[in-house]
Each structure stands twice: as C-alpha cells, then as structure tokens.
C-alpha cells in the first residue's frame, strides 16, 4: 500500500539546500515491491532467473542465504536452497534438506531420465521435514522464507518447495511478570505465536477448540489467531471479531495493544473494553465462558473479548483459592478499587467543605498538622499525587539498579521531608500512600491506569463542589459505563442490566460445585457448565469404614 509513503513524505519537513527525495528518486534508487504485484508474479522455469529475482526483490540483503547444488548423477540438475539466516535453523537445513538433496539423490541415481517428475520425487522422497508446502508465485515463496521456511528450487520447475524449519531466537516460557499469583500455574505466554497457542491447546484438549489465522499489517504481516470453542462462543460474536479484525489496514502490528485500539467499541472511552492477559489459564477459563481470544505473534499479551467491567476486577486466583478467602479478597479489591478513585477527592471535600463529618479530635489534629501548610487542600493533594505518579512512572522506566535509588529518594520525599518542610500535612501522606496501594490491588493493570487517570478530574470536582461534585463525577462515570458495550455485551453486565443468576460470581464467589452456569450474556448455546449435585459430602456413615 503505497499511500502510506505518500502521506509520510509530504509531512516530512524539508531542510533548505537539502531537499527531501521525491517519489521519482525512490523509484530510481530502489523499487519497492507491493504485495499485489508480487502475487501476480509467477516463478519462471529457469533457476537462475528465479534466484536473481529473489535477490533483487530482497535488495541483496546480507542475511539472504542461497545454497546452490546439483541434484542426482551425471552432472545433475541444478537446484538451490534459499532461506534467511537467523530465521531458519541451519542444522535442520543441513540435515534434512541438503543431505537428502545432494547425497541421497546421487545414491538414488536421480538423473536426466526423471526430468518430468523430478519435483515430485524431491517432494516425496528427498525432503524429510514434517511440514512441506508448495509455492507457485513469488509472493508465496517470499512470504514463506520471510517467516522462516527454507525454499527448495529446482531447474525447470515453476514451483518451489517450502519446508518449515524455524530457527529464530525464542524466549523461554517464564512466569508472567504483570500478573502474579500465589497459587496457580506459573507458565506465561511468550512472544512466539505457536508457543502461545500450544499453551492454550495443552489445557483444552477438546477438538472443538478452533484456531483461525488472519494476517494483519501490510508490512509487518503479523500472524494473528482467533481462538474460540465451537459450541460455546456465539457464532455471531466470532463473526464480529473476524470482521473487525479484517477491517484493519495498517502498516504494522507490533503489539496486541495496536489491535485493541483498532477493534474497540468506543475509542474515546477511558475504560478498557478488551481484556488482555499473559496467563494461559486465564485465557482458557475465559474461553470456557464462551469468549473469543485473539493471539498475536510477537507479544505475550493475548486479547480476550468481550470484556465487561467486572472481569477486570477478577483474578484467576479467585477460583484456585478456597472460596471464603476468595470472597473476602474480592470485596477487599472492590473497596480498594473505589478508594483508588475517590480517596484523594474525599479528603479534599471533607477538609474543605464538610468538616463536621470528621470526628472532633481527628479534626483538631488535622487542623494542627495543616497549620503550617500554606496551600489549600486541593493544591496539597495535587502536588502529592503528581509526585507519586511521577515516581511510579520513573520507577518503571529507569534501569533496575537506578530504580532502587529513586524509590528510596521518593519515599523520603513523599514521606518525612515533605511533611517537615511544611509542604503537605502528614494526613495527606497517608491518603496518598493508601491511594497508591489501592491502585495496585486491581489485578489488571489497564483498569488501574483508568482509575489513576480519572482521579484527577475527581479531585478538581471535589475542590469546587465538595461531595456534591464528587457525586456528579461518579454519576458521569456511571452513565458513561452504562452506555458502553464490549462486542455487544453491556459493560456493566451482570449488574445493569441485572442478571441475578450471575451475581454469584460477582458479589460472591460461590463454591465451584454451585457455579453451574456460564455468564448469561455469553455462551447461549450451552449455558450449563457442569452437572448438578457436585457438592462433596462424606460417605454415608453406615456404609463408611467407621
């Protein structure tokens, strides 16, 4: 798609005396090859021409490897193995391709008499890798070798053989860093698509688990898999996901966040409408709800849709721990979540407008600690929140060993020094600390960011209209959330519209043996999750061993 270039070159600022290259210049120096053009370009019968074409198209790149050889006896038939150094495993190429093609073809006595069906012979007897495809156009050939396949070309053939032999550097499976659990599987997704899908399939052995591949990005040509369970996921939902994905026409997909931003229902909302996780077990549990996962090559973050508000406040550990604890933790999380949004604004409105609500003794001590502070509560709160957010951001970006120092300095600045310097009151420090801790309680980072963001307008409202202002702000947020949808599912489901049956996984976390139905907005095909009467009970006393 050339129009991307057109736009870019026009916006580029031009320096005087050094004019930007024009389109003609690009055309003269180096030609770019578009997918549509390559798709129409067939392979020729002459090996030399084909190799020259590949070289020219790839700009004679240094990592392109072309190993020419001769096939069979009597001087043999010219052939070549083409692959990209670093993407393809050289050992596999040596052992399974070249060995067969050079040595064994001689031993088999392949020669001039086999001219007509030499390609079939190579395919069936010489190349012994598990996955082999044929390419008829230059496009297919390049698409293959640029993904890591090795191509075998033979003189006189207008087809090429693509053998899968990936050998790119891979990060091993590690514990996910953004979602930590005490109890639960330690595996996390990696950057490799195949590893990720295998992690999902290993947990879901049903033949109804379907993976559908879509290629996104005109230039990055990133593989994306749409994963769902047939019979659970609503077919219309799957269709909607695929149609939204196929709408995407961009230069590159570097992370699943790029996709997320292009398939959201409401792009102007501060709330995340697509769930993302690094945990295969979470993806599987959501697939079992009837949701659809989108696995992107090159990132450990898998997207899941639809994602209503409440899934961002649930952790997979809720279902691994005993349910009493899970309920308590869940409510702790809800309260912390609300606190991370409104705690600073409550402080501001109470100290500015509604002092009568504060118990007298506490009021006196607040007044005493604020005595030396020259700023109104809002400025005080804003300063501290700003400092805290800056420290947090710095802590993430800085090199790890420097980060330590920053957090120590930050603790000193936020804590003792700011109070003794009379910039903020000591209660404010407590409020900021509580808010900070609360915002880390949200199990999914994207929702915590939203709360961080919304906290500041809430503080402004609290400073101008007191609790009335806070309530107005909350109402705006509530109205906004009530009007949001994620892939057709109301964002506040199952609270509003109310599905009383689903509240057992929201207000509580009922024991697994009572969790017999899937969320009612999803999985309409098979609403029942399990058999009834799973409640464990000790064996009958009469029949027991005593």
């Amino acid at each position, binding site marked *: 798609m050339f129009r991307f270039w057109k736009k870019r070159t026009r916006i580029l600022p031009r320096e005087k005396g050094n004019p930007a290259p024009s389109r003609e210049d690009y055309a003269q120096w180096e030609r770019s090859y578009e997918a549509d053009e390559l798709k129409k370009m067939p392979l020729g019968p002459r090996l030399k021409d084909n190799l020259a074409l590949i070289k020219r198209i790839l700009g004679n790149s240094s990592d392109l490897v072309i190993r020419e050889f001769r096939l069979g006896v009597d001087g043999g038939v010219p052939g070549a193995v083409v692959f990209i150094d670093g993407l393809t495993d050289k050992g596999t190429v040596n052992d399974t391709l070249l060995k067969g093609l050079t040595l064994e073809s001689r031993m088999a006595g392949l020669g001039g008499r086999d001219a007509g069906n030499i390609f079939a012979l190579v395919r069936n007897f010489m190349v012994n890798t598990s996955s082999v495809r044929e390419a008829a156009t230059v496009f297919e050939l390049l698409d293959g070798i640029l993904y890591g396949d090795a191509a075998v070309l033979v003189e006189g053939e207008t087809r090429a053989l693509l053998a899968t032999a990936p050998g790119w550097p891979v990060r091993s499976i590690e514990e996910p860093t953004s979602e930590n659990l005490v109890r639960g599987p330690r595996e996390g997704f990696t950057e490799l698509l195949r590893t990720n899908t295998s992690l999902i399939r290993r947990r879901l052995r049903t033949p109804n688990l379907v993976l559908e591949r879509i290629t996104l990005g005109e230039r990055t040509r990133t593989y994306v898999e749409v994963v769902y369970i047939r019979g659970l996921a609503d077919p219309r939902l799957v269709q909607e996901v695929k149609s939204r994905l196929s709408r995407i026409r961009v230069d590159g997909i570097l992370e699943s966040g790029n996709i997320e931003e292009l398939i959201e229902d409401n792009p102007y909302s501060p709330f995340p409408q697509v769930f993302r996780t690094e945990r295969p077990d979470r993806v599987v549990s959501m697939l079992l709800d009837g949701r659809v996962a989108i696995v992107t090559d090159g990132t450990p973050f898998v997207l899941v849709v639809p994602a209503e508000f409440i899934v961002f406040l649930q952790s997979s550990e809720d279902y691994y721990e005993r349910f009493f604890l899970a309920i308590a933790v869940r409510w702790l999380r809800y309260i912390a979540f609300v606190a991370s949004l409104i705690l600073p604004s409550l402080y501001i409105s109470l100290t500015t*407008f*509604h002092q*009568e*609500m504060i*118990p*007298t003794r506490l009021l006196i001590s607040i007044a005493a600690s604020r005595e030396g502070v020259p700023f109104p509560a809002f400025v005080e709160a804003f300063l501290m929140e700003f400092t805290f957010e800056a420290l947090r951001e710095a802590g993430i970006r800085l090199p790890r060993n420097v980060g330590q120092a920053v957090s120590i300095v930050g603790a000193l600045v936020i804590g003792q020094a700011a109070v003794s310097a009379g910039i903020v009151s000591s209660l404010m420090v407590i409020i900021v600390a509580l808010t900070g801790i609360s915002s880390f309680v949200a199990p999914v980072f994207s929702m915590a960011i939203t709360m961080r963001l919304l906290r500041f307008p809430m503080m402004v409202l609290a400073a101008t*209209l*007191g*609790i*009335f*202002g*806070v*309530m*107005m702000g*909350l*109402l*705006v947020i*509530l*109205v*906004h959330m*009530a*009007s949001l949808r994620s892939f057709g599912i*109301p964002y*506040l489901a199952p*609270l*509003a*519209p*109310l599905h009383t049956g689903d509240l057992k996984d929201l207000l509580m976390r009922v024991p697994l043996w009572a969790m017999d139905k899937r969320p009612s907005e999803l999985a309409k095909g098979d609403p029942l999750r399990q058999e009834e009467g799973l409640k464990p009970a000790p064996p009958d006393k009469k029949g027991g061993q005593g």
Partner: protein
Amino acid sequence: MQQDGRGNLIEEGRISSRQMAMLLFTLIISTVDVYLPAVVAGVAGRDAWIAVFLAVVYALVIWAVAVTLASRFPRQTIIHYSKEILGPFLGGLIGMLLLVYFFFVGASIVRILVEIMKSSFMPRTPLVIFAASVVLVACYALFGGLEVIARVNGILLPLGIAALLFVGLGSLPQVDFGQYLPVLEKGLGPVNWGGVILASTIAEIIIILMLYPYLQDRNRVGLNGLWALLGLGAAMLIGVLAIGLFTAEVTAAMNFPALEMVRVIRLGPQRTYLDIVIAAIWVGGIFVKVALVYYAVALGLAQWLGLRNYRPLVVPVGILMVALSVMAYHGLSDLLYTELKIFPGYSLSHALLIPLLLLVVAWLRGWRAKG
C-alpha cells in the same frame, strides 16, 4: 406518521418491566421521603402513617387506570394515542399538557435538590451551579437513551435502599412510639388530605404512559409496578419515623426531616453527621428522577412535533428546565407552599383525570389500535 397505528417510537432501546418498576420506585422515593413527611405531618399530624396507607391505595387506582390505558395502545405513547382518541387538536392539547406537567415536575425536583444543597451544605454557592450541573449530567445520560438511565438506576437503587434502611434502622433506637398516640384524634378528614397530598406526588408514576411501548415484557409491568408501590409504602413508613423522633409539630416545622433523621444517628459515642453521605446517595436518586422526566419531555416533544430523533431537543429542553427551576420559585417556603396547596390539584388532574378521560372516550369509541 399514524398510518400503521404505531406512530414513530424514536427510541430503540428496550427495558424489562423489572427495570421499569425500579425506575418508578426511584422516581417517587427520591422526592417522597425528603420533605413530604414535613408536609404530611403538618396536615395529618401524628396520623401521617395512616395517610401513607391511604396514599398507597389512591396510587394503586392511578396505576390501574394508567396501565389499563397504556395496555390498550401498547405500541404507542400517550402523545400518539391521545390524538387518535380525541382527534388531532384536542389530543395534541392533552399531549402538550402532559409534557408541561413532566417538565414542571422536572424543574421542581431540580429546585428541591438545589435548595437542599444550598440551605444545608453550601449556602454561598449560586443556585444555577447545582441546577446546571445535575441537568448537564442528565443530558449526558439522555444521549445514551432509556437503557442507560435504567442501568444507572439499577446500580444506584440498591445503594439508595441500603441508605434508606441505614437511616431507618439507625434512628430506630431513638424513636418514641408514644408520639403516634392517640390515633385519629381529629377524625379521618386531615388524614385523608395527607393521603391525597402523598398520592399526588406518587401520581408521577403516570410516566408509564410515555414509556410503556419500550418495555420488553409488557404484560408483567402491572404486577411489577404494584410491588414497586407497596415498596414505596414501606419506604414512606420509614419517612414518617421522623414524627416519632421529633414529634409531629416539630417535624411539620422542619424543611427536610429526612436530613434531620440522619443527623441523629449515632455510630459511636457522638452523633456522626453522615448527612452529606446520605445526601450524596440521594443526589444519585434525584439524578435518575431528573433524567427520567427530562427524557420523557424530550422524547414526547419530539413525538409531538413529529421528529425522527429526540436528541436535538435534549440541550434546549435542558436549558429551559434549568431556567424554570431557578425562576419558578422565590425560595424554599415558596416551593413548599406550592407542594402543599397547588401541586396536589395540578398533579391529580393530570395523572388521574386525563387518563380516565382518555380511557372513557376510547371505550365509548370502541377501543381502537390494539396490538
């Protein structure tokens, strides 16, 4: 517009009759427990609790008339079928009268909110700030449509009921039930009048005449509304606890007995002054009420004018509502006088007489446009 007997419905969202009942509950409870106990205590004295029972009975009559009428024309709002029943001129007039009624109810409730915030919490803030901010948020909700209002209510109502129970249970230890004796000291007359005043506020449930076509399960709305009314009765009984707390005379002299009830609650050794927290939750209820009547006005006006969309009318109607709420009353006493002397007749004539008239004429003309 009227050819297929349907009219233009404009709104595409549909709500369940349970959501409708919850909306009706919020619509009434957000006004009825705040200042009405004072009004009723002034009229019915210590027998206000009997007035509550009478009010529920009267309200059931209004509800029955409204639902019967609405169920005869299930695919239309009253703006359309009043024209069908009484002809385009008279019917249009009736439709306009009802729109003005809802508009007036909206403006009054905005003013009540403003008065409470102003007199109890922030006396030096200008009126229009509160009025404009609540209408602005309602405006945002209106662009989302009926479903959004119903969903917001679905979240807020449980909070509101929790707050109500908290107030009721929290002040219960200090209620002196001797205050309710003797019963019916002055006969049934004042009690009945108290019931009528309460019923005239509950009469706002005729908003169902505007919202009936947007229900998913229309046949259950009558029953669900009945439950909402019974729940309202219980909630109003919590409101009349004020008489047991403060005596009838003192309650009648109060502006907002509900806030005073909150102020007597003790969680520890001292009074805890949670009134602003309860008021904040109540602001949520008021917001739903404002949004709902505001919605009815904007939607009804669009239908009255034959527009395809009500959204262009949202902002103008909102500005007018803020303006009316600021200009209609001189102050709190003016507002309470209106509620006591003018609103009962005004409300009941619109909520009971108009639907009854339409019902009778429709019956005489042989019930058209069913289904």
